[in-house]
Structures are given as structure tokens and as C-alpha cells.
């Protein structure tokens, strides 16, 4: 298991390097600049002197290969550079927001898993029942509902009409402010989990070894717990992992809607003003997060199904 873990961790390194290259290349060729973004709203006039100073200050007047060499050198030293926009180290900007992002992603995923998996499981055990039909209708609606609209709807009901929860903000970081954004963000993965779980469980229920287990005289509860659950788990874990990994980047709409201080909105803001060091740093962090989750999932697989370890 240790060798497997080390191998998976080492495999992350080339991925990170390729991603870093891609980000650099993309942002070197896309049009637009930080200096231009400063006057984008027309509130200030263009200033050629400022443009020249900014380019010099940020090293944008240097040739591309020199900038690329510098970028690689900095990454190797775990230095993500200095933000154009805030003139603070990118690491500090990310650090100030990453915990809020993690908190939101974990809460949303916990909500999704806590409801999605049991709902899918129960639906699969009673296919065609009222519960099954309503769960699947709910899941399809959940998947097709724009998060933005759902967020506003929840705000309208729970904040404006009922007055139970605050409609926006991080507050003191407590649970109360977390509920609405987490539910809004968690509903799509919940729906997907319910559907996947149902399909996975149904698949296993029709397998030969389940019939064998039943014919051995095993009780229904034991069959479900020992055979069905364990075998359906691989699919469920995969879905949870993929969803969990992408939540951090996906949360940007929710962050904007609820004024939640996550790194999704940091990324989008930075792209809009071409704050390249922050964009590069934030994407790297999101990619790392995704890779870590994936690796973790692989390790969980190996624990569930020993065949995977050898493959």
C-alpha cells in the first residue's frame, strides 16, 4: 500500500508541470492586459506613462522565454509571485480565502452525500415505487436547475419570507451563514449522487453473485450490507471524488451570489483584470486540490477493491 501511495503521489508532479506550462502559455497569448483593465470602466483616462511603469514593474517588458524561466524558477521555490492588482504575495491572497472555500466545499459535499447516497440506495431497492419516482424526478430537477436561480430562490424563501437565515455574507464564519450557500452548491452533486447510486446499486442487485448469496440463504439485510453496498461503493466514491474535486472551482457563482470569500471569485476577478500571477497561483491550487482528491479516491479504491492496487 505504501508503494502504491508513493507512486500515486509522484505521478502528480508531471501533471502539475504540464498544467503550469499550459496556464503560462494561455495567458501569454490571450489579448488584454492589467493596465488596460484599470481603465476598462472609463472612470479614469488612459495613461501611457503608467502603462510603461506597470510593464516594467511586473517584468512584462521582458522577452517571453525570460519570463517563463523566471516563472518556473519561482514555482520550484514554491513562490507564486506578487499580485498585479493588490501588490501582495499571491500565497497570502489564496491563504486568506482557501479556508472559506474548503469549508463551503466540504459542507456542500457532506450535504450532498448525506442525502444523495441514501436516497439513491432506497430508490434502487424499491424500483418503480413512489419514492423511486419522486427521487428521480427530484434528481433531474436538481441537475437541471441553475444554481444561480436556486440560490436566489432559497434566499427569497429562507431569508426574506421566513427570516430564518441571513441572505449573504460570511458572518463570523459560523454555521448560520454557511447553510444557504452550502445547500445551493450541494444540490447538483446531491442529485447526481442519487442517480449514480441508484444505477450502481441496481446494477449490482442484478448480478449473479447476489442471486447466489440469496440462494445461500443469506438474509436480505446481510446481502445488501455485505455485497450490494460494498460493490456499489466504487461507483459512489468515484462520483463523490469527481464532484468534490470540481466544487472548489464551481463555487464561483455561489460565492458571488452570497458574498462568500472563496477562491473561485478570486480567480474570476483576477482573470477579468489579467492579474496573471494570481490567476496562475489560483489555478495551480485548484488543480492541486483536484489531484489530491483524486489520489485520495484511488487510495480508497485500493482499500475497497484490492484488484485496483495491482492495476
Amino acid at each position, binding site marked *: 500500500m505504501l508503494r502504491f501511495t508513493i507512486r500515486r503521489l509522484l505521478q502528480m508532479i508531471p501533471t502539475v508541470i504540464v498544467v503550469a506550462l499550459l496556464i503560462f502559455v494561455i495567458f501569454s497569448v490571450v489579448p488584454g492586459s492589467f493596465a*488596460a483593465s484599470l481603465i476598462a470602466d472609463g472612470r479614469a483616462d*488612459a495613461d*501611457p506613462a503608467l502603462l510603461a511603469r506597470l510593464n516594467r514593474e511586473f517584468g512584462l517588458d521582458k522577452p517571453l522565454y525570460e519570463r517563463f524561466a523566471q516563472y518556473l524558477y519561482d514555482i520550484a521555490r514554491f513562490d507564486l509571485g506578487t499580485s498585479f492588482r493588490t501588490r501582495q504575495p499571491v500565497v497570502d491572497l489564496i491563504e486568506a480565502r482557501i479556508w472559506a472555500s474548503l469549508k463551503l466545499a466540504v459542507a456542500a459535499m457532506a450535504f450532498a452525500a448525506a442525502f444523495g447516497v441514501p436516497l439513491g440506495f432506497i430508490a434502487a431497492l424499491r424500483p418503480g415505487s413512489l419514492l423511486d419516482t419522486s427521487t428521480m424526478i427530484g434528481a433531474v430537477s436538481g441537475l437541471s436547475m441553475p444554481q444561480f436561480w436556486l440560490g436566489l430562490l432559497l*434566499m427569497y424563501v429562507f*431569508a426574506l419570507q421566513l427570516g430564518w437565515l441571513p441572505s449573504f455574507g460570511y458572518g463570523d464564519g459560523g454555521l448560520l451563514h454557511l447553510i444557504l450557500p452550502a445547500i445551493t452548491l450541494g444540490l447538483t452533486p446531491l442529485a447526481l449522487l442519487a442517480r449514480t447510486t441508484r444505477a450502481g446499486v441496481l446494477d449490482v442487485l442484478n448480478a449473479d453473485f447476489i442471486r447466489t448469496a440469496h440462494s445461500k440463504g443469506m438474509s436480505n439485510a446481510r446481502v445488501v450490507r455485505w455485497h450490494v453496498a460494498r460493490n456499489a461503493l466504487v461507483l459512489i466514491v468515484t462520483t463523490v471524488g469527481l464532484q468534490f474535486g470540481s466544487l472548489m472551482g464551481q463555487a464561483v457563482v455561489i460565492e458571488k451570489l452570497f458574498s462568500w470569500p472563496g477562491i473561485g471569485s478570486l480567480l474570476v476577478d483576477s482573470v477579468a483584470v489579467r492579474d496573471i500571477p494570481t490567476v496562475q497561483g489560483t489555478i495551480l491550487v485548484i488543480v492541486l486540490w483536484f489531484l489530491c482528491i483524486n489520489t485520495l479516491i484511488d487510495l480508497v479504491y485500493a482499500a475497497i477493491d484490492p484488484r485496483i492496487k495491482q492495476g
Partner: protein
Amino acid sequence: MLRALMLTGLLAAGTTAGALAQTPQRGGTLNFTAPYGTSFSTLDVHATPSVQDDIFASAIHRSLYRWDAARNEPVLELATEVNVSADGTVFTYKLRPNAVFHHGKPLTADDVIWTYQRVANPANAFPGARYLANIKGVAEYADGKATTISGLRKIDDHTLEITFVGPVNPGFTLMRGTLAIYPSDIGGTPEFATKPVGLGPFRFVEHVPGSQAVVERFDRYYKEGRPYLDRINLVIMGDASARDVAFRNREIDVSILGPAQYQAYLADPALKEHVLEVAEVFTRNIGFNLSYKPFTDRRVRQAINHAINSPLIIQRLARNKAYPATSWLPLSAPPFDKDAVPYAYDPAKARTLLAEAGYANGFEFEVNATPNESWGVPIVEAIIPMLAQVGIKVRPRPVESAVHAELVTKGEFQAYIWSNATGPDPLSALQCFYSKTPRTACNYTGFNNPEFDKLFEAAQAERDPAKQTDLLRQANNLIQQEAPVWFFNYNKAVMAYQPWLHGLQPNATEMALQNYEDLWIDSTAPASRR
């Protein structure tokens, strides 16, 4: 009799309530919104030109001058008096003796000099450097030929002399938030960027990036009895719908409204009484590239102005949240000509003008446009059928906002649609049409007109304000005639506020920038604000 008594009683009660409403009350918390984006970019206001950051910084900081919304002009803020030399170039300021930074250091002339040198320092590449460019010695300092700025001289701790390269009204530039005075002892330290210290009425408490910043009353503020509020939560809310819910839920005290919400609020009896409107100093326009073939002919540009039904677009798309534009300078600018009339919607005249210019069969052009609802692609789409009527085919060319300005300053466009600041200083607004202003500065259309240049130069040299205003009025009228742009509209800024909030100012330079020290809330506010 009974009715008369009741009426008297009601009247008396009404008067009392009115009087109560007018006497400012101390204390309370204000939930103010920062609507332009999903974060504050930086707490170091020298590094940023954005209004969003100013919304935060103006609570903490003060500049040498400030904008007085009621008088519609810049006024002295950190100085009690100023003496101007006969030639109008040397200004001697008496700084406020009782102004103290939040960490206890009293304000001295050294702080002002240190601040201006920090902003002008080329290594910092700060956007405010341009506002100091007319101070003597700044050019040498920026080029590295001098280690100090010769035009800044400390006479004593509370007396500062500033020498300008020519006669100016320094209020328009030195009032900028990005020239806020920092304490010279700790101003440039890395901690300062996360825990700013200023001279303003409120001191910094905390910042949750992407969510909110909190400031608290500074007890040693230099104005007796100010500020009224104990605390302000500056809540970042870039999304208009979320702001709407929070406002109706009484969680926030002000909300900047977009066109759709403006109409919804006006239609709601509970909300319409508390909507503040102001004609802001922004002119929405389509700028023509004056070296691009059909636009070299003035008649073509005038024809486009006649061919578009601006009032209709303002009514339908902008939902009356704008004023039709006559020329470049906005309604509040002193040189604005009250007798001037906007281009009339007259397709027949437009066709005649086009025929005279040799374009009887029309022509095609494209307009660079961002997705902005008030001055972007939707507006260009609205003019397509109107211009088609006179034979002109127009296409929007969608661009991202960080690309838009880059293409315009490089001259890579046939036409562009934009919103441009046209105030508060009319002289610098019209400088954008002066032939010596390059396109990379703000002469985006590439305007070059000797008659205009003569008027502008005369206005620049004129020291009598009335005469200067008259020259600028003529220059502005000439711009209307020459039509280097399609004059679309002047923005109407609209802010909804809760009934318990008082002291808001109709700030024409930017409605969201409020002088927080004048704001106060009365006892009808929800418990969370008292």
C-alpha cells in the same frame, strides 16, 4: 371641533417627527454596500484607481481636498486655508493642527510630502502619479534625476508649499482617493497593506476578502462631533439580485440600482420614497475612429447622430435611468450650455447628410463593445435597425473589458462604445479632444481640430473662472458640431436607501462614494443597527 383637535395633534406629531428626523443622532451601525465587483482589490488605496476600493478607503483616509457634493466642487479638507501666489502657481497650505492618524501620530507637512513622493515614485507604478504630474519637479523625480520633488516644500510642521508648473485648480487632482495622505512613519510597510491607518473618521477593524470590511468610529477625528456612526460594515455585493433581496430584507442600508430595479423600486410605494438620483459625470458614447474612411467626413458622423433615436433607447433599454446627451460635458459641468439641444432624431436629414458625403448607398462598420448592459453590446444591437433605415449596416464586435481599452488605445477599431468620465473637471475632460493629447492618453477618436485647439489653449491659460467657463462652453459646443462620437446619454445614478438612514449626498462624481461622516441613522432602524 374634535376633527380640528385631531388635525392639530397630527400636525404637531408630524412636525416633531420631522424635527427628530432632521437632528442627527449619534451611534449605530451602517451596512453599506460596495457594488462594483466581488472584492476589494487592495487596501492600499495608492495602488488602485477603482471606485470599489475608494468605497472602503474613503472611510479610513482623507486627501488634501475632498469633493463637496452640495457645492459641486472640490474643497479644502486637510488644510484650513490656502494662499495662492499672484501667478497662480504657488499654493501655501495651513494644515489642520488637530488632525491625527489612527495610531496617534499628528499630521505634519512631512506626511503629505512623503505620500506624494511614494505615489510619484516610478518603481511603485501607482495610478495616482498622473495627478501629481503638474507639480514642479515631479518629472525629474520620476526620471530618477532627483531624489526629492522640488515643488514640495515644508515650511514648518503645519505649513506646506506646493509649486505647480503652471496655473491650476489643484483641488480636482489632489482630492483623489488614490492620493490619500498616509502616515510617513508606517505608511509603506507590508503590514500597512493589510492594516491601513489613515486620518479619516473611521479606523480599520477587519477585512474578510471577497465578503466585507469593517470600520469603527475614530474618537480623535479632527471634526468636532463627527462621525455620527459607531461602525460601518462595508459589504461587498456585486450581484444586483442578491443586493435586491438583502435590501428588501433590511439587511443592507443602501443599494445602487440597475435599470430594471430602478423601475421596480419606483413602482413600489414602500420603496419609491427612498430613492436618491443624480446625474453623474459619465458620458456614454460611440467613438468613431476619425482616420477610418467614412468617419473622416463630419457629415457622416452627424448623420449617425441624427439617425439614432436616443430617447427611445433610453426609455426602453436604460429604463429612463439616463439623461439624453447633448454634447461631451455632462449636465452638472459649469460650461454645459443650457441652451444647446441634442441632435434631433431625423432619419431624412441623416440620409441627406450621407448623400452629400457620397454615401447615399450607406456603408458598413463594426463597433467594439463589452457585454455591459448600459454601454455595451445590447445598445449596439438596439441601433442596428435604426442605422439600417438610413442604409448603414452596423455590427457589434464583442470584446472583453480588459481587451477593450487595449484595442481603443492602440487605435485598433472602427468604432467603440464606452462610458467615459467627463467630470468633475471640465478642463481635463475636454483635454481628451486636444490634438496634442495622444490616443494612448485619452484622445481615443484621434480628434484634431485647430479651432478647438485654440479655444482649449485659451481656456487652459485663462485664470478668470467665468471667462474660462465661457471658453470651455464654446469648445464643448464645437465638439457637439464636430460629432467625433455618437452622444448617447449621461448616466443617472440611483441609490435606494432605508428610511432610517440620513445624510446621503447626491455625489455627481460617483454616487457610491459617500462622505460617511455625514451619515446617521435614526431610532426606527432595526435592532441590529442600533
